[in-house]
């Protein structure tokens, strides 16, 4: 515990090392006590009961899971602050606060959050929280702990970025020269390496390179000013038009009185 643990942690997934064994998939299910969701785990898709999946794309195995963004869109859009980013990296969810507006799902650039659509009364948003309990306790994530080939590796974010760059440097021609997640939407806690373009593996490559929450905050932070100015302006108009009517009425009366005299 201590300062050491507060350093942001991350996961590095190297798809060239993945053999598609599904150990991470199983470990995630075990850790989160999730039921079976697929006959063939390679065909499974993210759902309320599958928080990470291993899929085959372009003859490689890839993992899909919450990217646990550095500046998470879901955290910024949640009206009740049910989603929080902890200093260690995980983005986690508090169901007791949630009112179920699903703005997090709408806003997530990676389409990660899932929903318990079948639950009529207490549905939860479901997503990988990077094993927040384990990570804050100084352990690595369940998926990283069982990976037999080291395709999923847990560590400090800075160190992992460095390691990813070293792997690219030391194996010329093996990797695409890009560590996915260093700058995508302002950076993520899940970093990816691949030997073919990320697009063919199903990862979006057209994402903005800056944090999305800025897009709405640019407008929202102006609101207090707009309200203040608008309020004063309208009160002013109200006063002026009222005064104008009063003056007109007084003048009319004066004129009438003048005629009578």
């Amino acid at each position, binding site marked *: 515990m201590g300062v050491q643990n507060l350093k942001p942690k991350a996961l590095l997934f190297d798809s060239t090392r993945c*053999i*598609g064994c599904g*150990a991470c998939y199983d*470990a995630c299910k075990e850790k989160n006590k999730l039921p*079976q969701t*697929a*006959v*063939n785990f*390679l*065909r*499974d*898709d*993210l*759902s309320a009961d599958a928080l990470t999946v291993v*899929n*085959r*794309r*372009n*003859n490689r*195995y890839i993992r899909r899971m919450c990217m646990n963004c550095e500046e998470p*869109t879901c955290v*910024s*859009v*949640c*009206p*009740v*602050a*049910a989603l929080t980013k902890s200093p260690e990296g995980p983005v986690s969810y508090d169901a007791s*606060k*949630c*009112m*179920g*507006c*699903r*703005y997090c799902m*709408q806003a997530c*650039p990676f389409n990660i959050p899932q*929903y*318990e*659509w*079948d*639950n*009529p*009364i207490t549905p939860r948003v479901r997503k990988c929280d990077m094993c927040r309990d384990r990570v804050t306790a100084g352990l690595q994530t369940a998926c990283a702990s069982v990976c037999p*080939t080291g395709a999923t590796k847990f560590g400090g974010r800075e160190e992992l970025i460095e390691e990813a760059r070293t792997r690219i440097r030391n194996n010329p021609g093996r990797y695409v020269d890009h560590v996915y997640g260093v700058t995508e939407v302002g950076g993520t806690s899940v970093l990816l390496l691949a030997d073919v373009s990320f697009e063919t593996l*199903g990862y979006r490559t*057209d*994402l903005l390179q800056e944090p*999305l*929450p800025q*897009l*709405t905050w640019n*407008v929202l932070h102006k*609101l207090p000013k707009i309200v203040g100015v*608008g309020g004063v302006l*309208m009160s002013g108009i*109200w006063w002026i*038009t*009222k005064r104008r*009517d009063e003056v007109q009425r007084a003048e009319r009366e004066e004129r009438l009185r003048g005629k009578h005299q």
Partner: protein
Amino acid sequence: MSKINFRFPKITFWRVILFVILTAGFYATVLRFTKGLSATTNLSARFPWGIWIGFDVMCGVALAAGGFTVSAVVYIFHIEKYHPIIRPAILTAFLGYLLVCVGLVFDLGRPYNIWHPLIMWNPHSVMFEVGWCVTLYSTVLALEFSPLVLEKLRWRRPLKIVKGATVPLVILGVLLSTMHQSSLGTLYLIVPHKLHALWYSPLLPVFFFISAIALGCAMTIFESYLSLRAFRKGIEFELLNKLGLVAAVALFVYLVLKVFDMDGRGVLGLAIQPTYEGRMFMAEMLLGVIGPIVMLLIPRVRNNQFGLFVAALMVVLGFVMNRINVAITGMDRSSGVNYFPSWTELAVTASIVAAGFLLFGLAVKYLDVFSRDEMDNITRGKRSELPVLAAFRQPLWSATTLALLIGLVFMGATVALSYDGVRRRVPAPEPAAENGDVNISAALGELRVPGDVAIKMGESSPGLVIFSHARHVATAKPNCNGCHSSQFRMLSSSADISPGKKMQRCGQCHDGIKAISTTNKELCDSCHTRH
């Protein structure tokens, strides 16, 4: 001598329609709160917001535009001539917000937590602001509306307090409502990767705001026209005329800004492309913006009651189209699913709207929405047969039918304009379906043979070995036992792959007899090389 006279309500066309809608809505409501959203909606993780947000919330808020426009004109700008329509306008706004709140109760996963934004703050969230706006403005509208009830109850003191607070309430209401209109646009600023470029713009809040002003004028014309027809008396036509001009100017500003914005982003060309989105966009702009501008600028049309009413109606419908395009059409392509509301979603929406009409009718009957003299004129002749909706059934019948007909024409024109686009629309490529072995829902449906299996080796290996099931067995009637032992239970879908049984899954075959054993660690290396 009083005789209790219970008469079965007369069966009329509109009552039958109302009954059918409300029955369907009741069924859908029961379904929603017992079986959940999956049983009632076509929503999914890829399309989490449907028509309940796109129509009920976005357009319910819009209904209030008439309320804040008229109350600002009367109370803040002191243009007293508009006073006669202030009550119906506020009533409509109040009902609009009721539509929003009821819609939210259906849409929110945990509606009982709807009050949470009041104590659990996140000022960075647009939804947080929207939540506060809905709460505050509903309260303001309720207060603005309360004199009608208080008058009936003859509660003098509260009435005096509320009336005294009218101006601050109106200022607060105008601020909240305009903020709310634009913040519904801000809501979509966070999805630059999902909303189609024809609608996504950094100026979304501005567009939402300007179109709300045009809508406010149009709603006022619309409401006045209805009251005009219902009570053969309304406000001076010349005033509505001017409002029509204001609407035209607002729409023109909207149009110019829109064109410049789209040109600046280089997406002007998208509008004329024969895509689904392009056609929907053109329909929205032609029918809801350019059409009304032209109509309102022609004096002969503007000075004609019917012409003005049609133009106003077109503005309203164009507005609705715009909101639905932003919420649904524009999100369609990136989502990869073709969302269309289920009948239960439509039934709930229709029921809420129908309930709104019903409440409007009841309010008109029991409260002094329109001034007393006018009401007396109306009811004197046929008091004996005044049913719930009589006050606005008979004279309004033609106007309502007219509104519906124009709405139908509008929808028809839209469909006609976008029909080609719909047909030609290429289904968005499902990334998950690549190689046929990833999309679980598709795969489960056609699970006959598994997809390709990659046998990946280490760096010393000449390369990846892909075993294609499809090439080795007949996909229509696969004989799995040719290669796999009969204990291999892939097809029975009962294969136990739960986490605890991890080794059993491989171990079923890798038992040292059928294939190399999983327990012999040294033999693992014969297939899996270590990095």
